Each structure stands twice: as structure tokens, then as C-alpha cells.
């Protein structure tokens, strides 16, 4: 293990967040077992009071998760210097491949926490707390996810050995390598460009349509498209967007974007992509819940708001990502 300040802080926060979510899940179990809104017993009153604690715990846990995700990315960048052959976060992750899982679970946990909190907000706006059971059931899924993340983080950081020779991003994200990263990097840029820009066009169209008409299917479709577009966008970052930013047709690393040489452009890019995906996903998730009468109105006011935010963040992401495609002299034309 490397005793790096960033690693210490990440492990500390992982433990704190796990503790908070576990405590929350404990409350959730009790609520699931005993919740009875029609009762006016003292126990029910105590349970209702506990829901305040739970929302506070979860919103703080989410805030810490977001901050720790940023610190995690930066720490990966920062410690790559202690690994032989590592040139960016890719090398740091390869030094102990558990890191890839930690990263993936972290992204999943981030989305899950954000969705949970939004559902909670909707629920609290209704008189009869209609989502209580759904919410607390979800919490029992979320808690293991956070625990898994903590466990993976510990396994990753404790298993890091500065003497291991790792491969740099040049070999993982190069067109001729093996593995998922290399296969995406090796994807022909043109079809993926079509998928990326086509996907964005479809998404924008769905968004505008969803704003105009109060129909269920474009909104459901929007949620599904948001997730698909997230995956396509990440693949596009690896396959061609990064190459444009580096102005190097052979450099496909999604992490070097986070370095100072590229003005830390990766941070706003990934954050806006995350926000756009989240709001889009929320539109889809909330749609089936409109059948519950008491939260129909809050969702109906929120959905257009989410759609607008999603479209806005997506546009910012697209501008950030494609800026060098439009304004730099570099072109991938010969590499289609």
C-alpha cells in the first residue's frame, strides 16, 4: 500500500459513507417492517421522524460520494508517477486491476445515490409518502453496492505495490492491443461518430418532443436513450474524442484528459455527461411512478425541468467534447 494523503482520505470517506448508508439501511429495514401510515401510534410517529434522519444521511452521503469520485480520479492521476511504466491513471489502475471494478462500482453507486435522493424528494412532497416501500427497498440494494465499493477500494489501494511494472495507456488504449479498452480504441471512428452524433440528435429530438407532448413513450425512451448515450459517449471519448483533444491519432486514453496539459478538460466533460445522463434517466424512471395519484403532480412539474437540464448539460458536454474537432487543425480523416 502507498500511504498517500489522497488514498487515506478516500479510504476514510469510504468507511464514513458505508457507515452512514448502513445505518440508513438499518432504519430502512425497521421502516419496511413496521410502516403503517394509517396508524397514529407513537411507533409510527417515531418512524416518520426517522425518515428525516435518513434523507439527511443520504444527501450527505451523496455529496461525499461526488467529492470522493473527483478525488479518486485525481489521486489515480497523481500517484501514477510511482509505478514503473505508468503515464496516467490507466497505469495506476492496471497496477492492480481491481481498480477498474472499483471505478465501475463507484460510477454505479453515484447514479444510484442520485436517483435515490431524487425519489426521496418526490416522496416527501406528497402527503401520504407513497414511495416509502420502494425507497426503502432500494436502500437495501444501495447499501450493499456502497459496501462493495468500499471493499473494492480497500482491496485496490492495499494491493497497490509501487514496484509492479504496469503498462501505460499507450498499450492498453492503443489500436493493436487486447482487452476491452483496446477494442473500443480500435473501433473505426466513423461508425462510432455516426452513433455518437446520431444518438445526440435522437436524444435532442426526444427531449424536445417530450417537452411538447405529455406522452409516456418519448419520456420512457428518453430515459433508456440516456443510459445508452452514456455508454456510447464513453466509447466515443476513447475512440475519437480524446484523439482530437490530444491531437494525436494514436492516443486514446480517457484519463489523460484529466491532466493539466489538457487544461483538466476531462473533469467538466465527465461531470456534464454525468449530469445529462442522470436527469435523462430520472425522466424515464419517474414516468411509471406517475400512476400514483399523490405524486402525479410533482412529477409532472419536475419532468420538463429534468428534460431541460438534461438537454442543457448534454449540449455543454458536446461543446466541450467536440470543440477541438471543429476548431483545431487536427483531423482524423485519414483514420476512418
Amino acid at each position, binding site marked *: 500500500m*502507498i*500511504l*498517500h*494523503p*489522497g*488514498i*487515506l*482520505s*478516500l479510504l*476514510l*470517506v469510504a468507511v*464514513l459513507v458505508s*457507515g*452512514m448508508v448502513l445505518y440508513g439501511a438499518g432504519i430502512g429495514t425497521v421502516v419496511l417492517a413496521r410502516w403503517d401510515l394509517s396508524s397514529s401510534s407513537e411507533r409510527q410517529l417515531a418512524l416518520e*421522524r426517522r425518515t*428525516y*434522519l435518513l434523507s*439527511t*444521511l443520504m444527501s*450527505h452521503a451523496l455529496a*461525499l460520494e461526488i*467529492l*470522493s469520485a*473527483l*478525488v479518486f480520479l*485525481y489521486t489515480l492521476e*497523481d*500517484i501514477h*508517477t*510511482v*509505478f*514503473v511504466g505508468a503515464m496516467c491513471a490507466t497505469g495506476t489502475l492496471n497496477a492492480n486491476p481491481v481498480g477498474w471494478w472499483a471505478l465501475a462500482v463507484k460510477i454505479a453507486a453515484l447514479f444510484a445515490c442520485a436517483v435515490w435522493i431524487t425519489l426521496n424528494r418526490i416522496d416527501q412532497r406528497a402527503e401520504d409518502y407513497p414511495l416509502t416501500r420502494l425507497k426503502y427497498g432500494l436502500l437495501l440494494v444501495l447499501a450493499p453496492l456502497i459496501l462493495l465499493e468500499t471493499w473494492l477500494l480497500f482491496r485496490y489501494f492495499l494491493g497497490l505495490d*509501487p514496484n509492479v511494472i504496469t503498462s501505460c495507456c499507450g498499450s492498453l488504449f492503443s489500436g493493436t492491443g487486447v482487452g476491452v479498452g483496446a477494442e473500443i480504441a480500435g473501433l473505426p471512428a466513423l461508425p462510432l461518430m455516426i452513433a455518437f452524433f446520431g444518438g445526440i440528435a435522437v436524444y435532442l429530438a426526444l427531449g424536445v418532443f417530450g417537452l411538447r407532448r405529455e406522452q409516456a413513450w418519448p419520456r420512457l425512451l428518453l430515459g433508456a436513450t440516456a443510459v445508452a448515450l452514456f455508454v456510447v459517449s464513453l466509447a466515443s471519448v476513447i475512440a475519437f474524442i480524446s484523439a482530437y483533444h490530444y491531437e494525436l491519432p494514436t492516443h486514446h486514453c480517457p484519463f489523460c484528459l484529466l491532466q493539466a496539459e489538457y487544461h483538466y478538460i476531462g473533469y467538466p466533460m465527465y461531470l456534464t455527461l454525468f449530469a445529462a445522463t442522470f436527469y435523462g434517466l430520472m425522466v424515464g424512471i419517474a414516468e411509471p411512478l406517475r400512476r400514483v395519484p399523490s405524486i402525479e403532480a410533482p412529477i409532472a412539474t419536475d419532468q420538463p425541468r429534468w428534460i431541460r437540464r438534461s438537454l442543457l448539460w448534454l449540449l455543454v458536454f458536446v461543446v466541450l467534447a467536440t470543440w477541438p474537432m471543429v476548431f483545431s487543425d487536427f483531423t482524423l480523416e485519414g483514420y476512418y
Partner: protein
Amino acid sequence: MTRAQFGKHLKILEFALASMLRRRMKNAGIVVVFSAVVFLLSSIVFLTSALRAEAMATLEGAPELIVQRTVAGRHALIPVDYAEVIAALPGVGSVQPRYWGYYYDIYSDANYTLIGVPDEGPGSAGQLPLHLVEGDMITPGRTEVCVIGAGVARARSARIGSIVSLRNSRGWMQEYEVVGILAGASRLLTNDLILLPERDLKTLLGLPDDRATDLLVEVYNPNEVANISRKLLERLPQARPISHAEITRTYDTLFDWRGGLLLAMSLGAVAAFMILAWDKATGLSAEERREIGILKAIGWETSDILELKLWEGAALAITAFLTGITAGYAHVFHSGAALLRPVLQGWSTLFPSFDLAPRVEPYELGVLFLLTVAPYIAATIVPAWKAAITDPDRVMRAS
């Protein structure tokens, strides 16, 4: 969020600040302790990264490969003819012997680093990023002259034209005229440095004619350093090749480790602080309890009280965090980290004071935030909620 909702949050914040001011003493205690914890941790983080940056600046001009010789596992003088064997390897540029050593000076009770300047000129004097503050470099052919670092100049009260006398290997005093005073990109590097003409240095330290301290090897392609090291070891089994990357990595690991160890130990203080924060937040005075009761009775909701308590915590945490960070910054970059330097710097007893280049990265602030504010938040959520669910009826009846 509508404007009305936003206004409500602002009003609650205003109320929170006012109520904290009313209970100045209780909150001041927490702020002082919290600031002290942040001060300690931020001093460690700032100092570690400043020292690391300093070390990296020192290493910038270092050659790709340094070859030493080890005998019985210890560093030994290297035969100069190794240079021919190494220079014959493909991919190797020039190979230069380097002469240097340490000198303990009883007058100033300090260790100096002596480096020989070859006749070809000072450009290859260990390839250090040096530049003169005043005077001249040692010109080829001159003897019994020296160029000294600012720290040595201070310790010996020497100026251009003064004489610095050093005891040679036979015990006789040898005199050198100061012709220049040095400064470097990193003062860590030049403070204790004395440059002597190579021949003078060999006589002073009593080095045999055919031996050097180590060899500097120029490698054309940095990616080939590992290969060249391997070939070199096959031909010269006693050699110990040290690559530039290895040195950098070692320093990185070393500083991370030192800083991390100190931080890990200080986490005890964070834990103690968490308990204090928990305790303070739990122990509501009768007056506070009554206040909450009245607020609820006049229509505040549980969520409003909870928000009030969280605003109080946030205001307190931000005040303490900023105070602690500022104090830590001043401690490290203005007073030279007087409290921590001996622990973290760790390689010399005398170095005259040097100033670290002030630098703070947003990343460091994020790390410090996670290390200090996150535990505080975790410790105060439950007490804040407990305060918020206070039953107005029960409080008022009790009073």
C-alpha cells in the same frame, strides 16, 4: 427552486448565524479545536507536496543514468575505466566521471556537499541546475578557488574574495578563495554546496587518481535506460545503475510515505475531534432545547430545525476549515514549517533556513476537506436530527 424557497433557506441561514453568535463561547471552543486539527493536517499535506516539488526541481537536470559501484553491498569508488566499457554500449552518449563527497565542518557544525568541477567547465558539474548570484564560475585551469552556496556563505560569513579553509585528508588546512556564490532553482540543493576544481577536490578528499565517486551516463533514448542498465550489469557486475526515473519514483514514494504516515497518526486527532463534535452537538443546553421547542410551537417544521442545525454545522465547519488552511499555509510557506520540518525533511541537521515555493492545489484542498470536514459531518448528523425532533410539548412542560 423558486425564489420564495430560496429566500426561506437564506432566512434560516441568517437565523443560524445569529443564534451561533449568541452562543459565542460554546461555538468558539469547537472552532478552535477544529481549526487546530485542520491546521495540523494541512501543514502536513502542504509541506509534503512542497518538499516533493522541491526535490523534483532538484532532479530535473539530473542525467538519465548514474552508475555507482558497490562492494560488499556498500557504495564504493568506481574505477574511471568503467567509463570506456559503458561508452561502448550502443545508445550511450557521453560518460563522465563525477567527483563529490561530504565534508563535516566543525566550525559551523554542519555537513557540506563538495562537488568537483571538471576542466571542461561547470556545465557538467553533476548537471545541476545552478546559477550564480554573484561572482564567476570556476574557470578551467584555476586552482585553489571555490564557489559556495548561499547557506555556506552565511555559515562561514564568506563573501567574494574571502578565504574558506577546509581540512584535507591528511589533516592539514587547505585554503580556497571564494570566486562565486550560488543559488539554485531549489535552495535545498545549493545551500550546503561547495564547488571546487576537480583536481583540488581529489587532493582534499584524498581520492585515488583512477577512481571517481560515480559515473554520469547520457542515454539518447530514455526508453532504453532499462535495457542499457541490463547490458551494463552483464559486463560490470559490481556496477549499480540508478535511473533518473527510479530516483524520481523513490522520492515520490518516500514523501508520500512520510506525509502519509504522519497523516495516519494524526487521524487519531481527527477521531478525538469527532467524539468532541458529537458530544458538543448532543449536549443541548436547556435553553437551546427551549428555543427549539418555541420555534416548533410557532410553526417551524422538523425539517426546518434540521436545516437550521445543519447550517450551523456548515458555518462552523467552513470557518474552522478556512482558518485552519490559512494557518497551515502561513506555517508552511511563511515560517518554514517550523513544527514539522525536522520530521518530514529528514536528511540533514544543519540546513540553513530555506523558503519553500508557495503552491496549493485544489486537489489538496479536496483531500483536506474529505479528511476533516467529512468526519465532522458524519459525527453531527445524528445529533442534529435528535435536536430537530425535540417535542415542543415536552420541552415547554419541563420548563
